[in-house]
């Protein structure tokens, strides 16, 4: 297990460095002069030159990249060129909101999706299975931004049950949870369908295994067979899916953060790309990549712990 962990950690570091490199090149390949865009048309040549020097934009691109990597290694993500605030500070404020949204969205999707998948597998081709199938495909097909807008129209404007904007008052955890409900619903809805379909397929496969047939032959109660012997095995691919899907969720939160005007890393990336505030974009994307790699790593380790055969295949 330790050797497996070491290999996965090394791979994670390589992935992060490569992803940051690709991001860096892409960001600097966008047409347009970042100095003139950031400072506007009225900036004097002196101010433009000072900005370029401050951002290291007057240096070769590889030099800028290594400066950035060196700073990151020391925990320095740079300074916001507009506010002069440390990028790490800005991201430290934003990241908890994104994580809370992603976890809440995934949490309710797991809580609903996995039981639905189980029910469908236990009674295949029943009305429960058919309704679940229709709902699953329907929710998968709905883009999260559409769900966001519809949910605002229904729950906030028509019924006036839910708040629309912001993340709630600081220090008021109940208010913050309340502001989390609609965004988490919008982001997580598609995952309910994904998880239900995934668990159903896995469960059907496992329920056909010899050891399940033996359990039935021994007369074990059906519930015990499902929850003690079938589900723990069937859920393994789902854990991997959740790990990989967490990255997708992070990108999905961008829409929710914009539409619900929530703070978050996705929204800060969106805003700062438009403003060409390179240090914040670089820092935010780096943090997002790192988060994704860490979550994927945790999912892989969990799967390898739950199913030791996986370790030997890496």
């Amino acid at each position, binding site marked *: 297990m330790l050797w497996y962990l070491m290999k996965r950690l090394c791979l994670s570091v390589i992935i992060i460095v490569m992803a940051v490199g690709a991001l860096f090149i892409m960001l600097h390949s966008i047409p347009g002069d970042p100095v003139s865009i950031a400072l*506007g048309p009225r900036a004097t040549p002196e101010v433009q030159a000072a900005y370029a020097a401050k951002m290291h934009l007057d240096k070769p691109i590889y030099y800028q990249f290594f400066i950035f990597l060196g700073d990151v290694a020391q925990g320095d993500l740079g300074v916001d060129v507009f*506010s002069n605030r440390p990028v790490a500070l800005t991201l430290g404020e934003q990241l908890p909101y994104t994580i809370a949204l992603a976890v809440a969205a995934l949490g309710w999707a797991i809580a609903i999706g996995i039981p639905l998948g189980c029910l469908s597998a236990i009674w295949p081709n029943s009305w429960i299975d058919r309704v679940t199938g229709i709902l699953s495909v329907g929710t998968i097909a709905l883009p999260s931004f559409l769900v966001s*807008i519809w949910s605002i129209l229904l729950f906030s404007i028509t019924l006036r049950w839910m708040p629309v904007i912001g993340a709630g008052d600081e220090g008021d955890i109940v208010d913050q949870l309340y502001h989390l409900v609609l965004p988490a619903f919008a982001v997580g809805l598609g995952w309910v369908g994904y998880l239900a379909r995934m668990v159903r397929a896995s469960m059907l496969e496992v329920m056909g295994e010899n050891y399940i047939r033996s359990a039935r032959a021994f007369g074990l109660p059906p519930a015990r067979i499902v929850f003690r012997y079938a589900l723990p095995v069937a859920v393994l691919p789902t854990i991997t899916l959740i790990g990989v899907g967490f990255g997708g969720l992070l990108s999905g939160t961008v829409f929710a953060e914009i539409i619900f005007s929530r703070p978050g890393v996705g929204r800060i990336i969106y805003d700062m790309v438009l403003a060409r505030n390179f240090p914040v974009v670089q820092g935010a994307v780096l943090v997002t990549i790192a988060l994704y790699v860490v979550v994927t790593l945790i999912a892989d380790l969990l799967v390898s712990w739950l199913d030791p055969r996986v370790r030997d295949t890496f």
Partner: protein
Amino acid sequence: MTKLTQSRRGFLQTAAFAGAAGLTGSIPGISWSAEGDTLTVRFDREMESLDPGYYVGGHPPNDVNWCLMPSLVHYGPSDNGWVPSPYVESISVTDSTHIDFTLKPGLMWSGGNGELTAEDVAYSYNRMKDSEWKGDYVAFDRVDVTDTYSGTIVLNQPFAPFMSLTLASGTGIINSKKALEAVGGKYTTEPPATCGPYVMEHKQAQYVKMRPNPDWTGAKPAYANIDCIFVTDSEAGALAFEAGELDCAKITSTSYARYQKELPENGALTVAGALQYMWMGINTENPKLADPRIRKAIQMAVDVDSIVAGAYSGTAEKSAGIICPGLVGHRDAPGYPYDPAAAKALIDEAGAAGLTLTLRTLNASERVLAAQIIQANLQQIGITVEVIPLDSGPFWEMGQESKGDTWKDLELWMMRFGAGPDPFEATQWFIRDQVGVWNWERWSSDEFEELYAKGIAETDTAERAKIYVRMQEIMEETGGYVWLTHEPEVFIHRADIAAQFAPSGEMQMAYFKPS
């Protein structure tokens, strides 16, 4: 000591229970905005800087500064004129180059930076002469300080719009000399000292909260607290208003058209100004467009009524130049008709049938729609147009010689500028010095240059009107411009709030009050 163990099966069971537990919870009561003494408004973007010398875009920096910082004059409630600010005992224009002012005593800067004085005024305006907004101070010479509270602003030439364009606008903000020098003479989003009815709490990308300034000795604003929430998406802003979470929000032309048909309960619309002018530019130096008959034909072929109806849902005003409605020198109609038949005849006469051109535009829905209408219009006269939508980065530098060679390939483009409440500001971008900077149509005229200088110095309104009308005629005669629209800055706000806006479309939140 108990050893903590966790089996695989136990982990999965715990995770399942935890997930189910996450579903349970209670729904607390919701609190809506504008209850009591708190006003909640929308800011559509984060602020890069509040420094009057270096801010980018009027909203939201001006909205914030007018709550926190002193200035000698403010925009009045109902027209484009100025009124003395709450910071002055008196201010008067003594002649065409001298403005006397006397500050109210006892207005204190935050952070122990002393009293607001005439020295602060002199320091702040002198500093602007070297700032990125020095264009607003083109006529400013100096401030002669008379005593602690009084002084005289001296202009280097008569400059009619100085009060409304310079002092009342965001560039007329006064800083504390002591505090600003202490931080090196420049700042971004944290003013070194404030002196206004509010103090600010700013959380990046989330909100700006205005709270009462305990040291403020002037008149109290109607709303003790103002919460400015960053809502970058315009439609989300409109929805938040409908849900009762915002009291005032700037909206798009799409929402404006919708609300004109049916207003939300307790909603009211205010058009804060239409100081935007949009046109289709034509590169007069491009070989494909060198024949003036082709440019004239393009001017006559564009159906602006269809653009206003199709792209702006009828909410924008047809344009006839760069001077916006309500300003001196505004024209009611362009000097060319909409006449596709005559345009087609001109194209045939020039032997340009089958011409292919590119039309570049910002990648915004209204503009792309407008570009597509123009594409169809020009197709009717035998010109094939390829619409090229661009993001703001490449768009804003495509005509600038200092940013590469794209300007050489420019043919047609859609452009929109914002203006201040005086015609001078709009004309400054088209003088000879601006060719290859912001004059992408690449023409110049001696008469235009003379009129530009004359317009700055002229104080007679009727004479100024003649000057600026003629300047727009000169622009039009180059064949480099197809006037399109003046887009309004529209806000939706609670009907029981009397909202006040600057002519340039910023909120004067300290003047908001219950109606």
